[in-house]
């Protein structure tokens, strides 16, 4: 997966399907439309391990609006809403 990521198109994790695997390219909080300020959202994402180069996989999703999602980040699992996951750009 790691060496294919530069050939894949970048997309926000918030749009990815269940089962998606990829690598974080960068964080872009201003596109997420979260209620948090950009800096706050970015800080929180980093604090939960969403940093550039981390491998992510969408393991599960909720029933209503396929939201929230359970994301494997390296070797931990984090639940986030798709709205906040829009800030995580993956490929």
């Amino acid at each position, binding site marked *: 997966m790691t060496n294919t990521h530069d050939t894949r198109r970048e997309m926000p994790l918030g749009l990815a399907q269940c089962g998606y695997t990829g690598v974080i390219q960068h964080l872009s909080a201003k596109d997420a439309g979260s209620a948090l300020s950009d800096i706050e959202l970015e800080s*929180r994402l980093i604090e939960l391990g969403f940093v550039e180069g981390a491998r992510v996989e969408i393991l599960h999703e909720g029933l209503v609006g396929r939201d929230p999602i359970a994301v494997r980040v390296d070797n931990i699992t984090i639940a986030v809403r798709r709205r906040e996951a829009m800030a995580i750009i993956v490929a």
Partner: protein
Amino acid sequence: MELPLLHLALVGTPNSGKTSLFNALTGSRQKVANYPGVTVERKEGFFVTPQGRQVSVVDLPGTYSLRGRSPDEEITRDFVLGKASGETVPDLVLCVADSTNLRLTIRLLLELKRTGRPMILVLNMFDIASRRGISVDVERLAKELGVPVVTSIAVRKGGTADLLALTDEISAKLAAEPAENTWRALSVSELRATQREADRIISDCVSLPSRPDTWTARVDAIVLHPVGGLIVLALILFVMFQAVFAWAQPLMELLQSGFDALGDLVHATLPDGLVQSFLQNGVISGVGSVIVFLPQIIIIFLFILLLEDFGYMARAAFLMDRIMGGAGLHGRAFIPLLSSFACAIPGIMATRVIDNKRDRLTTILIAPLMTCSARIPVYTLIISAFIPAKDVWGFINLQGLVMFGLYATGIVSALAVSFLIKFFMLRDYAPAPFMLELPDYKMPRLKSIAIGIFTRAKMFLQRAGTTIFSMMVLIWFLASFPQPPAGATEPAIDFSLAAIIGKALEPLLAPVGFNWQIAVALIPGMAAREVAVAALGTVYAIEGGKEAAEQIGQVLATKWSLATALSMLAWYIFAPQCASTLAVIRRETGSWGWMAATFAYMLVLAYAASLLTYNVAVALGAG
């Protein structure tokens, strides 16, 4: 020579095993209290090191950084920085890490180092890490981090021996003046850089798992399935309700008959008079009517602690987040609201798991609208006296339907109130994003569950012994003074302050169809809602009190109109008058204002609902 008390603080990310370590170190020598002014639980414990050093240790709320984004996290930050009012700066910080998941903790540790506090990195859950084939070069890690590192297994006997030895060793050579504090909130780029540094250190010192946790993945395939997960959740809830209502029943009856017997004993041994009445009616039956809920509270906490220890709570929040989000509630509000069906007190206490202040407050405000078990005696009494036990549409029992309607109205009102709060009152708060670690499943540990239940039960009993006790004394006083004149034939209560108050309130309550006797019964109902049943009995001068519930029902059926009865049911859906709930709201929100607001809004709802019910019923000819 007597050494001064050594102060330790446990810091770490959520689920790293801080509480387990705390329990392992201190056993049952624990004190649970609240930090002044905030709702955060403060847990301090004591132990003695192998070399005989007296130690106090504080279990701080889990955090990913020192930024302090929730009241919990602010406590942790202020405590470590020595800014928490009335707290001693810790002499030594134990940074607790889940060894299977070091990335986030090592970053936290690099941030903590800047505070200059002496520190140890505790690699906890080392058993799980070894099982998964993770190996850590402890010496190299200590050198890279510049902090002593020790492994630990909090849930195994002797699993903290190395930590204890290291604590002794370090405390012997603690410098009088620790290093300077250079901490300030990290910028985004500093955070990133720190995470990079942490990742580099980990890749140098830790060989990562060859075997991921397949067990968790397999359980989650069912438990987090969009549809299957909700079914599992519903099943768990069903068992929990069953336990709270059915399993607790025999124990509660046992306690109740114990208190009744004690009351009878007092009645028989003491001469008739004030002392006898005070002990029997004021103290024993009053405090007893609250203590009978202990089994339900223990069962609810048993479930909550088991599910929490197992790692399921975060999953329940995940499943319910969007469903509750429609009403402006956070996914984490689910469990506290659920607990409130037994009693709002543990429910409100359980809101501590919600880290956002706005979400916690909304949940606290609506928790008393969940039909608590104390309303059941009142509902049962009125329904069986006034609602015929006939079937509607051939198969649904009308009495059951009314009961269901009362529960449903409570839930719908709670959601509506939450919705209104979201739109009108707390708009300036940013809705908390839902970001939560889903920890690997772990087998619950008997010891930590037992300690958890024990501390909660103790808190509950302490409250019953103080707040509720003083309430009951007050109510007994109102109902007993002044004494009836000699030779009076009416019930003694007719001459009491309670009756005077009841009659004064009557004009206010007349529009909703309540007479003065109901007004009087609502007063002792302040301490515990179900006391209203016994109070109605007293007021209508029926012998036998609670045992004669059916008899009270017959009397009520002759004295009240159907409209009054329905109005009373509507009142009890909201029933603002529960002193212990109000007291716990005051304590948990740290504010008299929110307590008053809860009381006021529930009073308004109760009055409006009763007014509507009464007038509609009268208009339909039930007056």
